[in-house]
């Protein structure tokens, strides 16, 4: 009986999840194993005002349409797109490992492949921004909790601003500020005493700018959650600790952090997932020459006139796999807890 009640309660959510999550994933996986039909080319006469009339190659749309009618999904290519140079680049990797060059040169060659270059930046971004967001959010929450109630409201307002600004707009504003003729660009030049330094021309500095932007943008989110958690802090434990002579740092480490632990896990999880899909800073900072990410790949393949849909679908599937791997430890623990409760 209980199962039946549960089923009826769960049905709306299940339908929504099926419609908006399961079916799109199946569709993307299907698209990623199909490629467009082979182009049928014909020679036709083309006349333009600049060159007069010449014979040129163009696509035979009739034949292409016939091919599409027979097989609308395209031709089945299995995992070819996943293994090609724009994705996992299996053949290129095998060649690199087989070659007799030294490790440093092999390392450079691996990171010359577009997918691994994107993964390099995405992983670096995720595993630098997430912990710093948690730590910074905690510090801000502790600080705001301790200040005088008269200015608390004002400080909270200013602390929340970076998160309120639309990510793309914030990135665009910062793009002009870090330009070599902008305020921040000039400040950095003055600090290191090098008038030719340009943040946008150096890959390392661009990565740092993007990571700082990521931390700056997401810290208020962590702050708000931790601040709410701090309000439920048991005051008697803090007092007892203070009487026993614990320093401020010890109070935080032994009482506040364990109390906030579920919230810290929650924020870390959300940040892991969000940062793995980093995209707006790269577009806003025009940084695609220095840093790319999986999401940027998908955007690049989909937009523009080349529209490589199968490549974009394969990148999407790889992103889903990546996020699953990241969240696997948490899912495992949840499953274990569930098993224990039974």
């Amino acid at each position, binding site marked *: 009986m209980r199962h039946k009640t549960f089923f009826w309660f769960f049905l709306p959510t299940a339908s929504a999840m099926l419609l908006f999550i399961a079916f799109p994933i199946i569709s993307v996986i299907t698209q990623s194993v199909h490629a467009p039909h082979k182009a049928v*080319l014909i020679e036709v006469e*083309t006349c333009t005002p600049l060159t007069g009339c010449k014979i040129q190659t163009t696509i035979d749309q009739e034949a292409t349409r016939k091919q599409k009618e027979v097989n609308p999904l395209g031709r089945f290519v299995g995992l070819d797109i996943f293994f090609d140079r724009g994705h996992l680049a299996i053949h290129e990797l095998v060649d690199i490992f087989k070659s007799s060059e030294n490790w440093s040169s092999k390392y450079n060659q691996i990171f010359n492949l577009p997918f691994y270059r994107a993964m390099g930046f995405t992983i670096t971004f995720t595993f630098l921004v997430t912990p710093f967001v948690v730590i910074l959010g905690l510090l801000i929450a502790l600080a705001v909790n301790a200040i005088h109630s008269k200015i608390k409201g004002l400080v909270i307002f200013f602390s929340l601003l970076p998160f309120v600004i639309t990510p793309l707009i914030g990135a665009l504003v910062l793009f002009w500020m870090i330009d070599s003729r902008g305020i921040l660009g000039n400040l950095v030049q003055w600090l290191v005493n090098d008038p030719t330094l340009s943040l946008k021309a150096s890959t390392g500095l661009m990565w740092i700018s993007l990571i700082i932007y990521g931390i700056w943008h997401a810290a208020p989110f962590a702050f708000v959650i931790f601040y709410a958690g701090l309000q439920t802090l048991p005051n008697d434990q803090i007092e007892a600790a203070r009487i026993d002579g614990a320093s401020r740092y010890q109070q935080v480490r032994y009482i506040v952090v364990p109390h906030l632990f579920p919230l810290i896990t929650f924020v870390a999880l959300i940040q892991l997932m969000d940062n793995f899909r980093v995209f707006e800073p790269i577009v806003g900072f025009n940084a695609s020459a220095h840093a790319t990410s999986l999401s940027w790949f998908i955007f690049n393949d989909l937009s523009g006139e080349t529209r490589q849909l199968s490549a974009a679908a394969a990148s999407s599937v790889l992103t889903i796999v990546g996020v699953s791997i990241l969240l696997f430890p948490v899912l495992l623990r949840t499953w274990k807890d569930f098993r224990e409760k039974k």
Partner: protein
Amino acid sequence: MSTGVMKHTPQYMELKMIKKLFYSVIFGSTLLFGAPVFAGCEISDRVSIVGNEFPAIQTVGSGAQECKGAEVSTNLTADHQKINIPGMQGNPAEFTAVINNNSVLTSLMNADVIRPLDDLVAKHGQSLKPSQLIKIDGKVMSVAFMANAQHLVYRADILKQIGVNPPKTYEEMLAAAKMIRDKGIMENPVGGAYMAGWNLATEFINMYLGHGGEFYKTGTAELTINNDKGIATLKMMKALSEYMNPDFLTHDSNATNAEFRAGNVALMNMWGSRAASLVSVEGVPQEVKDGFAIDGPMTVGGGSTNATTLWWDGFGIAKNISDAEAEASFISLVHAIRPDMLTDKTSLEAVWLIDGYKPTPAAKGVFAAASSTSLPYPSLPQQPLLHSALGNELADFMQGKESAEQALNDITAAYNGAAKEKGFLQ
């Protein structure tokens, strides 16, 4: 006497009737004679145009919006290549007309989203010249209205200061840039739309054609840029970038022009369509306005072909729309490019292919490009894939992270992957 009594005397009524007649005659005649002010552009269904945003296209867009009878909306943006095909693939399509050029037309034909215009040309295209009609396989697929090319734009006063003639080759441009920097006049005298992506790829294509290179093996889609001409092209681009603002990989035409207007650039290879109105905006210092000059495109490596490409811009009509919408779009765009639209102001904006266009001094560069040996931008169906591969892979080389040979290998590998996926290569 009260006004009530006055109102109904016979004399008063007669006067009123005469007044009424008089006003109706005047009103009726203005209706008759007032109409030609709008050159009679009547349309019966909606029009939605997508295209680029430089001044000549803005003029065409506003010209189309003069038509009465239905809504004419325009979406003119620098990102038009991201939204045009997606916006025309739906059925019914979102956009009814698209401003295209040699390169965009290829992609539109590949995606099969535009319709033949022969019947519309026969019905409404009397003001068009035969040379304006772009024919593919005997069918009119686009109507061209302007020509464009990149050519030299420079500061005549700076070159006079260093005692040098306007460069005719890229080697001369490098020498002039070195002199300007050594004399301390400007730190980064060269400008170029070298933004990673479409712009950088276009610069490569221009420079490679200047070196006399071929892109593909004849009759196939096999890429043939991995040769000494490709290496020479990359070396020249790197040499030029040494004299540019270090942020050049983030600068498109708009940003490069902003640098010129600010007085930071003395030599650049810029689009004719943008050069025309470069210094006529607000806030440009007087010395930049006075020193602004244009010349034809340059050659490179001792070649005879200009290191530039010829482009035409025109419009096409979407396939997945009703015939009424297609007719309305065609009428409004033909109205926008009618010979009457050439005024003193609009004549400056482009090298119009319209009847009655008289070349202005601003058109000197594009005319020089068209009258000397310049090749049109290639319109083969696999060209967008090469353009995209170049745009993605050149940035590493331009930052000095890899050698020219490695860059050409990467470009070829990226192109091959895309061409295999799209079915151009086995």
